[in-house]
């Protein structure tokens, strides 16, 4: 099923944009070039044979050893009755990507969450602000090298373990 989608996409966009198709894992995925993500998603949504209209999930994974942050898109097709997985990577130093909120409105809040917790900014997003953490929080917690501050707004962030202090 995902093989069909891969073939259709390679025919339309070429091998420079659709980079790789991984089939051996449990959920086969397609790796694409981050610069063309908006046009690929627009094509996938409105193609009448594929009809990938249902946006399920968007997650971000931090790989500090590869200096990359990978974004994984899960989209469900109501025509083919299957889930399609797309992957794309951005660099850790300048994490920027085009937003696909114009294709699926559901992606808007998922992208805000990734901006909040991982620090990836999305171009052309309508309201890119922190969503889960307070507005004046410093840092992006889901990165692997995140360190907590000792005090936030006059509240200490640690608590002494009574078993150790009373020993």
């Amino acid at each position: 099923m995902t093989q069909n989608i891969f073939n259709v996409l390679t025919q339309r966009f070429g091998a420079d944009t659709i980079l790789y198709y991984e089939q051996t894992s449990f959920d086969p995925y397609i790796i694409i070039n981050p610069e063309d993500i908006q046009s690929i998603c627009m094509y996938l949504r409105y193609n009448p044979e594929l009809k990938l209209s249902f946006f399920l999930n968007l997650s971000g994974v931090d790989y500090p050893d590869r200096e990359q942050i990978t974004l994984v898109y899960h989209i469900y097709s109501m025509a083919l009755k299957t889930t399609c997985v797309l992957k794309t990577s951005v660099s850790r130093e300048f994490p920027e990507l085009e937003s696909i909120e114009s294709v699926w409105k559901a992606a808007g809040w998922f992208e805000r969450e990734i901006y909040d917790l991982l620090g990836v900014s999305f171009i052309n997003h309508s309201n890119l602000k922190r969503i889960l953490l307070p507005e004046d929080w410093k840092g992006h917690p889901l990165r692997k090298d995140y360190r907590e501050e000792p005090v936030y707004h006059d509240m200490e962030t640690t608590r002494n373990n009574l078993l150790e202090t009373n020993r």
Partner: protein
Amino acid sequence: MERSGNADLKHLKPQIAPFREEMILNMGPQHPSTHGVLNFLIVTDGEVIHQALPNVGYLHRGFEKLAEQTPYTTFIPYTDRIDYLAAMFGNHAYVLAVEKLAEIEVPGRAEFLRVIVCELNRIASHLISTGALALDIGATTPFVHWIRERECINDIMEAICGARLTYNYMRIGGVSRDINESIADQILKFLDHFEPMIDEYNRLISFNEIFIKRLANVAVISQIDAVNFGLVGPNLRGSGIEMDIRKIMPYSVYDRFDFDVPFGEGFKGTLGDSYDRYFVRILEIKESCSIVRQALSKLPKGNIKAKVKRKLKIKENECYSSVESARGEMGMYLVSDGTDKPYRLKIKTGSFTAMSIVEKVSQRLMVADLIAFIGSLDVVAPEIDR
């Protein structure tokens, strides 16, 4: 059938008056509603809302970062607290993902026990959500009736797994405890007592003229909007789209049961209004009762847990698995890296996308209708914030 709603008040249709002054009201995070800590910034001119901006994050506890520091087998109590009203589904989604990656086969008796407790939990969750909707609108009696019924389900859960709210019942490879004859009798007795109560409840509140007028034709979500914003669960089915993970991507043993999936038809008003979303939940309670009866009659004998190593290490791989929870699809995207802790766990919940549609649909609503709308969406705060 007579159409109820605001059809006869057309001359009072809310207009945005340009000469009136706007004010920004703050609703929450502490408020008399029962949906948890939610905050809305309402831009209004007194009664008609121009914009309602949700402000979430008051219960963000960092589950995903905690998952990276906890071994697979010890993370299960955390999954209860993702959605505390439907805690079994959190357990189920997580153990499904781990078993898929580690290729563990679950014995048949454990699968049927999982279905029984999950459907009982779906009934309990829908009881609270429909009761809370009635309470928000102003009817205090149905909520107390439903709390009394929910106590019976709490007793059954306590007999099965020892806890009333956060169960920690499932394990990787099966479940933790078995049920015996007396618990099965207790469940059947409860179902015999409870199924007539649904009709009594419908007579009490569901077909009540004032209740229908409060909910019909309020906050209509069209089919295009519902799919575009990624709604799942009873919210999506209330707009008429037949999508249920138990039917389209069957997991566990759901393909062996005979049940219908109710979806909205414009029961008392327009298709996709608040009454549709509410009534779909009432119909789902009936279907869950029938699934529990079928599961109890088909329960096979055998082990309740497969043999799994105590320190479970999974080689590098990733997968996405989802279950149909009481509030929609709960999906877990799990990435493993060869150690005994996950590399990344992303939890996708139904309430997150349901909150994102509030801004669009709540324009031109009255303030009181906003309360009814949020009650019909059935959001809980920890599912949004995780």
